[in-house]
């Protein structure tokens, strides 16, 4: 009995450094797989000029005169990354939507326009601007309530966002595009913009997600 216990104790004591060594080896192997990305977006908001992104014009106000007019655009967010060029441009699709006046603040001319990243905050698919309630009900399993209007809707997991309502998105505050159906955890990511000479100009993008 005693002999057994001594052997057991010795076995236990010797197995600990062996296990530790094995863990270290696994750690080294896993580290090899981690890409040597040096940039990417850190924090909540990506600055517009990281790696020299220029300020990009995405829409003319003349294109967005009537309520629910919208325009799709691609914003290129450049970030420093490991590649032969040292820079990777992530293409971020976006939407500009002209909201009806009842949803806008009359004192603030910018509040008539909703600018969002078109990347679904759920799992990264590109969502659509759906105008017909039949398409919403048939394709996205969401039947909008009576005074109906267009919605953002994602084909991957059927999240539907209401551009007229706001939702608390934690650290980033109250955002337009409340999730009204589907698994999305928060409203779409935003873009900050300015109106200059009748044009909508993107000045920054909210970070996060996989491009």
């Amino acid at each position: 009995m005693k002999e057994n216990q001594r052997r057991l104790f010795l076995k236990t004591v010797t197995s600990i450094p062996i296990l530790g060594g094995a863990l270290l080896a696994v750690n080294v192997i896993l580290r090899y797989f981690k890409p040597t990305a040096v940039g990417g977006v850190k924090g909540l908001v990506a600055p517009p000029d990281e790696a020299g992104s220029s300020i990009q014009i995405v829409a003319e106000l003349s294109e967005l005169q009537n309520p629910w007019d919208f325009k799709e655009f691609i914003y290129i967010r450049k970030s420093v990354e490991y590649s032969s060029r040292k820079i990777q441009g992530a293409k971020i699709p976006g939407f500009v939507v002209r909201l009806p006046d009842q949803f806008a603040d009359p004192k603030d001319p910018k509040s008539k326009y909703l600018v969002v990243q078109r990347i679904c905050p759920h799992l990264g698919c590109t969502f659509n601007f759906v105008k017909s309630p039949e398409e919403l009900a048939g394709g996205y399993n969401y039947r909008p309530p009576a005074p109906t209007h267009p919605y953002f809707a994602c084909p991957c997991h059927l999240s539907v966002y209401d551009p007229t309502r706001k939702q608390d998105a934690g650290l980033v505050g109250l955002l337009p595009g409340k999730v009204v159906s589907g698994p999305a955890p928060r409203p779409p990511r935003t873009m900050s913009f300015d109106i200059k000479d009748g044009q909508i100009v993107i000045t920054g993008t909210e970070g996060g997600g996989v491009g």
Partner: protein
Amino acid sequence: MVKAIPYLLRGLLAAPASFLAWFQERWDKMDLFDESHVQEARSNPWYSIGGMWYWVWMLVIISGVVLMIYYVPVTDQAYHSIERIQFNWRWGPVPIGAVVRGLHKYGADAFIILATMRVYRMWFTGEYKQGNELSFIIALLLLIIGMYSGLTGYLLIWNQRALWATKVMATFPTYLDQNPAWLPGGTLINLSNQGKTTAQILLGGTSIGPATVTRFYAFHFMLSFLPMVFFELRVYRKGFKRMNISHWAKLAVFGIILAMAIMVPAALGSPANPEVTPNPILSDWYFLAMYHFLKLQDPYLATVLTVAIPFLVLLAMFLDRRPERAWGQRQIFNWIGIAGLIYFVLFSFLILNGIADIHRDAPIWYYSMGLFMLIGYGQDWAYVMKRDGKPWYGTFHLFFVAFILVAMSANTLYHYFGDIRELNVLAREALPRVLASLQQATPAATPDQAYDWMEKNRPALNLWFTHHPGPNKPPGLELWRLHVAAFLAIIAAGTWVGLARWGRDQEAKAALAAAKAKPKLKTGA
């Protein structure tokens, strides 16, 4: 309970050594491709699955290596190189490239089917018992590796389906960084960015790009080829027969895959376009059920559960500790298997038909899961009563049943009577009527106001926790606290009673051993 403590401590001290002994026994017994079931395979086709599986694996590797010669792993050429393989690589009227690609694709599908069938065979016949746990673990691991190899493989085509499947697959680990603050250590895990790092390791960067294709190409080949090398080394050392099937069986399997490849040429899809997600967008067939699973709940929960599925299967395996292997004598575990199959088929059907409502469907399947467990438990209870000849209360597992009932009530009540705005099924159904009546008074009434009205006029019994404490929300009992308390109490009481029983058993065993050892000592002296 107190009696169990010395035995527990002794067990803990001996854990590494006893684990090594446990592992050694299983390592020697390990059965990877039914190579130890040569006799059974002659009369029972279920036991030739392993051999067929390995044969299909070889076919996939060989056809894959042939495809590698023409495939160009660069984002802007990948799709065209596949087109060239599919249409331009011909020998007279014979489309060789299309057939080789078909062999690779349908071979891979057959691989997944056979791997799944083998896991199920092992599960339903309790083959993991009597020291065969490692065989089951490896069978499950190979199935997961096969699925991951499939995922990395179909991105190489660089079509729409592949791009969006990869995006979903690479984004979902990032939710591992979003543990809620109330979880012990949750914030610490969030700060360590494990999820984001995982996504970067998968993609080779922060987005899907050229590095991803190279990386997936490497993973795709490595994951398929390395296990085969290990198996071949084992064959070489132990000297058993590699495949337990006849040459005719091999020819038949090859013939079926070849016929599929010729009759239904493998699809190409449309080239990947990161700017447009088509509707509907689906993954490969074996991921459909999991893809649907993501539609049914909060992404954090979905991520944690998806990662947990294989571990839960292993947990269930280790909980099945009775020696019985016959079908009628382990009904709980049969029902776990049957439920898995039902969910797989049902979810795949639902996603193909685009039926998914997070508010309506999630509680149904949560509820059904509990129901399956209760049915299984009922049958098992009846069996144990009969086996041991005990009265009904003598074999009833109070804590197990209570745990399932509390879990079922928590989910269902939350969805049906919970927060008016977010998850309450009844409120969502009432919304159009309330809105219509409000609009009679003021035409500009919005759904928000309708929800507010309901909140104001609901019975003053606010049982549930809510994320959105509104001005109209009455303070309530918050029954979720009672549920958490009930869960913890059940787990604590169950552990206490179980450990006490285990301690008594250990003591009785030790006493028995001592009684046996004593006479020997006397005769020796």
